[in-house]
C-alpha cells in the first residue's frame, strides 16, 4: 500500500497571531511552526499502516524552503520520502491542484490530509483533491482500517458518528481520533539522524491558479472587562444572563 500524507506547515497552537504589511500578511516573526495537528494524527495513523501492514509513506507539502524543517520532523517520525512543491500557495484550491499532479503520478492508494489547517481553516484541500483524482473521499475521519483495497472509516457527524466503507483509492480529511493524542510520536535521536539522509525531493509547481485571494486580515475587537459575580449572590448571574445578555 502506498500512502501519501499531506502536511501543512502552521504556527504552533500557542502562537500569538499578528499581521504585517498593512494587515495583508501573517507576521511570522517569533512564531514557531509545527506539523498541522490534524495532519499529525493522520501521519501517526500512516505510521501504524507502515508498521503493521508494510505500507510506504510519503509526505508532501506545497510551500517554500522554510517548510523543510517541518518536513524533516515528519521524516524523523518515520515517513520514508518527502516531497516539497516549491511555491507559496494563495489558497486551498491552488494547493489541491498542485497536489493532484504529484498524487496522480505517484499512484497512491491512500491520501491522508487533515480536515483543515489550523491557520487558514479553509477545509477544502482533501475534498477538492479527491474530486480531481476521482478518488473516494471521507471527511472528519476519526477511525480508519484498510484491508486489501477496502477501507472502513468512522466519520464524525453532528451528535455522533457513522461507519462508512469505500474502495481505494481514498482521500481522507483526518482529525484527532484517527489515533489518540498519547499515540503521537516525538521523534527520537535515531529518527532525527535518519531523517537527515532521507530524500526530500523538491518539485517545481505546475503554475496552478488560486480561486480566492486573501485581501486583508483583522484581529477581533478587544474584549471588555469580565463582570464578576459573588458566589454568594448567584441570583445576580441569572439576572444578568436573562436581562442583560438575554441568553436564558
Amino acid at each position, binding site marked *: 500500500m502506498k500512502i501519501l500524507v499531506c502536511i501543512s506547515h502552521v504556527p504552533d497552537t500557542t502562537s500569538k497571531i499578528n499581521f504585517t504589511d498593512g494587515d495583508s500578511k501573517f507576521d511570522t516573526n517569533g512564531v514557531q511552526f509545527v506539523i498541522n495537528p490534524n495532519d499529525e494524527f493522520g501521519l501517526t495513523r500512516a505510521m501504524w499502516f507502515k508498521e503493521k501492514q508494510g505500507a510506504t509513506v510519503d509526505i508532501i507539502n506545497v510551500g517554500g524552503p522554510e517548510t523543510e524543517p517541518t518536513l524533516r520532523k515528519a521524516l524523523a517520525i518515520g515517513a520514508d520520502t518527502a516531497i516539497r512543491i516549491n511555491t507559496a500557495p494563495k489558497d486551498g484550491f491552488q494547493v489541491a491542484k498542485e497536489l493532484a499532479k504529484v498524487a496522480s503520478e505517484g499512484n497512491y492508494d491512500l491520501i491522508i490530509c487533515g480536515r483543515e489547517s489550523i491557520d487558514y481553516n479553509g477545509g477544502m484541500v482533501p*475534498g477538492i483533491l479527491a474530486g480531481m483524482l476521482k478518488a473516494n473521499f471521507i471527511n*472528519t475521519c476519526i477511525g480508519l482500517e484498510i484491508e486489501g483495497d477496502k477501507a472502513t472509516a468512522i466519520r464524525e457527524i453532528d451528535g455522533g458518528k*457513522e*461507519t462508512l466503507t469505500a474502495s481505494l483509492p481514498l482521500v481522507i480529511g483526518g482529525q*484527532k481520533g484517527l489515533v489518540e493524542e498519547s499515540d503521537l510520536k516525538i521523534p527520537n535521536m535515531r529518527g532525527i539522524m535518519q531523517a537527515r539522509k532521507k530524500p526530500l525531493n523538491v518539485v517545481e509547481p505546475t503554475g496552478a491558479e488560486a480561486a480566492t485571494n486573501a*485581501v486583508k486580515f*483583522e484581529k477581533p475587537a478587544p474584549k471588555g472587562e469580565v463582570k464578576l*459575580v459573588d458566589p454568594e449572590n448567584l441570583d445576580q*448571574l441569572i439576572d444578568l444572563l436573562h436581562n442583560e445578555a438575554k441568553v436564558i
Partner: protein
Amino acid sequence: MSVLVYTESEDGKFKKGALEAASYAKGIAEAMSTSLTAITFNAQDTSELGTYGVDKVLSVSNDKLKNFNAEAYADAIKQAAEKEASKVVVLDQSANGKYIAPLVAFNLEAGYASNVVALPESTSPFQVKRTAFTNKAFNFTEITTDVKVIGLSKNAFGLKESESAATVEAFEPQLSAEDFTVNVDSVDKAKDKVTIADAEIVVSGGRGLKGPENWGMIEEMADILGAATACSKPVSDMGWRPHSEHVGQTGKPVASNLYIAVGISGAIQHLAGINAAKTKVVINNDPEAPFFKAADYGVVGDAFEVVPKLNEKLKEFKAKNA
C-alpha cells in the same frame, strides 16, 4: 442568474443552520438583485423555507438519498446550480455541509470560502469576511471565480424572516453509480440529546472537576438549560469524557449563544475554539485563570459549591419562566 442554498434536513425537518443559510443567502440574492432557490433532499414540508426568503424550492425525493451521501448530494447540488444558472451557492457549516462544500466547489470549478461570518462586503469584486487562525483573526477573502461557494459559520448571521411564497418544483438529478461508491454502514447517534453543533447553550467542564465521577452536576445543568455538554482537551485526553465532547482548536468549534465553562483555566487553544460563542461564563476558583480575561461573566469560587447552588437557582428560574 440566481443564488442557490442547500437546506439540510434531518428526518425530513430543516435544521436551524439550514434556515440561517437561507436567511443569509437571501441577503446575497438581494445584493445581487436576483432570486433565491433552495435545494432540499427528502424534506417533508418545504413551506417553512418561504419564511426565510426562499423564492423557489427544488425538492429532491429519492430513496437512494435517504442516508446522507456526500458525492451524490454534491452532484445533485451541481446540477441544481447549473439548472438555475446560480452564481453563488451557500451551505451551512454542519459536519455534512463541510463535507460536501469542497466537492461542490470542485464540481462547479468555484472558489470556496469557509467559515464566513457576514454578508459580502461587495459582490463585485466578491469579497467576504471569514474567520481564520481558529477564531484568532478575521480574513477578508475575494473569490475570483465566476461561481462562488460560501460556507456560512453557525450562529453568525442568525435567522431573518422575509416573507416569500416559495414555489416548489420536483427535481430529479441524474445520478450515476459513481455517486454511490462511499456507503454508510451504520450510524451511531444519540437521539434526544442536544449536539454541540446545534446547541444554543453549551455547558463545559475542565480538569478542575477532578474526575469523571463529578460530571453529574454538569449534566444536570445541561438538562436544566436544554444545553449540550462539552469538555476541555485534557479531559478528553485522560478519557474522562468522550472525544466527541472536546471543544477547542483541535476539537469542535463552539458558536452557541451561551458557553458556561466550569473548572477550565482557558488555555489559548481552548479559547480559540469557543471564541465564537456570544456570551461566555466562567466558574473557577483561581481568579488568575486566563479564562476570566475572555469571559463576559465570571464567578470566582469552588465549582463543587457554586454549581449545585446555581443549578437549584436555575431550576427555580426555569420553573418561573417556563
